[in-house]
């Protein structure tokens, strides 16, 4: 049943598999800890072994979700089924004696909100390489859409000095308010008794030089969402280049691309900003397919709103606004973005072409929530944006 004959070999091979196929950050330390853990727990019970290895080898929620399937696949050579409906696996739901109406209601509610929600999530939010293969069979039908496709992944060049300067101007435009934290500063408003006393050691206890403290400025957080759908063409790469320029000016940046699914590409953009030439990883449904802005934004909001948005957040949306999905979803997502951010900048490549009016369904719906509406094709237009963009009143 096990691939190798001894426990350490099996454990090492399992860790290796986790690292290579599932992207777990598992090194010698985790391996050693896992081996120690197995000397502590009873090995006869597979569930205990599983429970013991899980906290050691996984480091994020995504790891936890992938762990059980990987464990099964390695130790039982069982097929993947990690997106099965958790409610279905909960036998208590079915075994608790109750009135049948109640029971039916639950099943009903489950069929309405449970699995559909689940599949829709997987559909819109391709979290990791390999998700496409891990879905239950029923999901495949829902995933397929003639509008979806996968284009070759784009390459990001590091931004040059001109772009960096212009991006810095934009970032500086959004200096937010004051932090609550008092820091030493030569031109502060608050007298710093402790530092003054400390400094007076040089002058035999006479406080000659007063020291001050001031509150720092908070930095704005830029949340950049780039439409990678086919209709954007080269513009999506241009938008990613703008993102990397902004990332070179402030570290406080999160970048996502979406087409029919949304995906975080912050690490790649940050590497490009640091001066590397970066090929983006396989973006699957977040690149080169149809456009579902509303569903993608909704997914982003549901998953990461607390982490990303706040009074210091500037949301930059780069999209042509040719929404293929439900415009009510887009309106709802935009209004939530609007409420939870300081400013929304919509970069629309179509603005570059003459005679364009934002009358497409998607744009009409989104427009009331957008603070600044522009397109950035070159350095001059980014500087222009840096002069005009603002925080909404």
């Amino acid at each position, binding site marked *: 049943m096990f691939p190798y004959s001894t426990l350490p070999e099996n454990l090492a091979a399992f860790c290796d598999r986790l690292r290579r196929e599932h992207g777990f950050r598992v090194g010698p330390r985790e391996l050693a800890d896992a081996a*120690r*853990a197995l000397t*502590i727990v009873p090995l006869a019970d597979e569930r205990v072994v599983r*429970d013991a290895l*899980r906290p050691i080898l*996984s*480091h994020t929620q995504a790891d*936890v979700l992938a762990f059980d399937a990987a464990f099964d696949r390695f130790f039982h050579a069982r097929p993947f089924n990690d997106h099965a409906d958790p409610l279905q696996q909960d036998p208590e739901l079915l075994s608790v004696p109750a009135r049948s109406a*109640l029971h039916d209601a639950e099943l*009903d509610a489950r069929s309405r909100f449970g699995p559909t929600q689940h599949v829709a999530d997987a559909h819109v939010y391709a979290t990791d390489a390999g998700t496409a293969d891990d879905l239950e069979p029923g999901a495949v039908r829902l995933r397929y859409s003639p509008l979806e496709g996968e284009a070759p992944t784009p390459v990001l060049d590091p931004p040059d000095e001109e772009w960096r300067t212009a991006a810095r101007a934009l970032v500086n435009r959004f200096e937010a308010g004051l932090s609550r934290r008092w820091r030493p500063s030569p031109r502060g408003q608050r007298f710093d008794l402790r530092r003054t006393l400390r400094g007076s050691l040089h002058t035999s206890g006479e406080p000659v030089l007063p020291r001050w403290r001031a509150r720092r400025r908070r930095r704005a957080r830029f949340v950049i969402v780039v439409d990678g759908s086919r209709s954007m063409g080269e513009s999506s790469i241009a938008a990613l280049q703008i993102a990397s320029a902004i990332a070179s000016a402030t570290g406080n940046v999160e970048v996502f691309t979406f087409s029919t699914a949304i995906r975080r590409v912050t690490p790649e953009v940050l590497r490009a900003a640091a001066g590397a030439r970066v090929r983006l990883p396989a973006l699957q449904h977040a690149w080169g397919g149809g456009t579902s802005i509303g569903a993608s934004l909704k997914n982003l909001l549901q998953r990461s709103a607390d982490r990303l948005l706040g009074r210091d957040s500037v949301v930059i949306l780069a999209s042509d606004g040719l929404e293929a999905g439900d415009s009510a979803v887009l309106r709802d997502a935009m209004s939530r973005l609007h409420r939870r951010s300081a400013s929304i900048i919509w970069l629309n490549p179509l603005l570059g072409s003459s005679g364009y009016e934002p009358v497409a369904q998607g744009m009409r719906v989104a427009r009331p929530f957008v603070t600044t509406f522009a397109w950035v094709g070159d350095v001059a237009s980014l500087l222009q944006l840096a002069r005009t963009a603002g925080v909404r009143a």
Partner: protein
Amino acid sequence: MIDASAIRSRFAERGFIANEAFATALQLVLALDKPLLVEGPAGVGKTESAKVLADVLGTRLIRLQCYEGLDSLTALYEWNYPRQMLHIRLTEASGADLPSREAEIFGEAFLLKRPLLEAITQDRPPVLLIDEVDRADEPFEAFLLEVLAEWQVTIPELGTIRARHAPHVVLTSNRTRELSDALRRRCLFFWLPYPSLSEEIAILHARIPGLADRLAAEIARAMKIFRTLPLQKAPGVAESLDWARALMTLHRDHLDAAAVAQTLGCVLKVHEDQRTLDSHPEALGPLLDTAPETLAPGGHSLETDFGLGTVDRR
């Protein structure tokens, strides 16, 4: 060495229902001397688990609440400057020589121990709870890594203080920002999800003695349904406990539409979420006993008992 089943039963005695996986993780924390990073939705008992762990082990709980702007001094130690100044003034005439006076004012009496230093100077290994570590800044996280790795603190004036016993560390995070890989790799990771139906019923019974079986089951089911709705703030265990207490205070022994309407504020704490529930009336509907036609405008039942028991209408 305390094993997982013992941990489970001792946690259960203190009203904390831990599943096997969580008990195993806690066992490993004790056995491997590694910190445990607990993540999960708000209100599932992440902080509570550390408190109960301290209680089970019979040691002190030392809590470091993280917040934006928390710096290393606030977490480690500070010199009590005003007291030092006063001491210098008071002993100016004592005639003692400088080195001894200096040694005096940089002695332990003038040291204000903050949680991290406090944790490594205990006689028995305490439980150190580093709460909401995601709220602290990244530089603080880097500093924390150093302390977690070495368990020693150097105070220039006093020398290096080494931990007599490494504390058992529990970190919690609500994921308001991503923690660094380095911190994650130093810790055991546990994702604490919402409890299953039977776990939630067990929690309700464990925390609220005297709760009717039927009400507990109905609350747990309703919670399960709430968590499948597209809410902005899904209710946690804390909310179910509040709700159960509220319903008991109102002398309800089962859920009905009026009871839900009266006490919805215990469960859904965002206006939009209450609207979402209104737009999904079918979700809870069949769970509730009262048929909609007995409702007066405003959602109150005409047959309300005003908390006095069943109204007999003859």
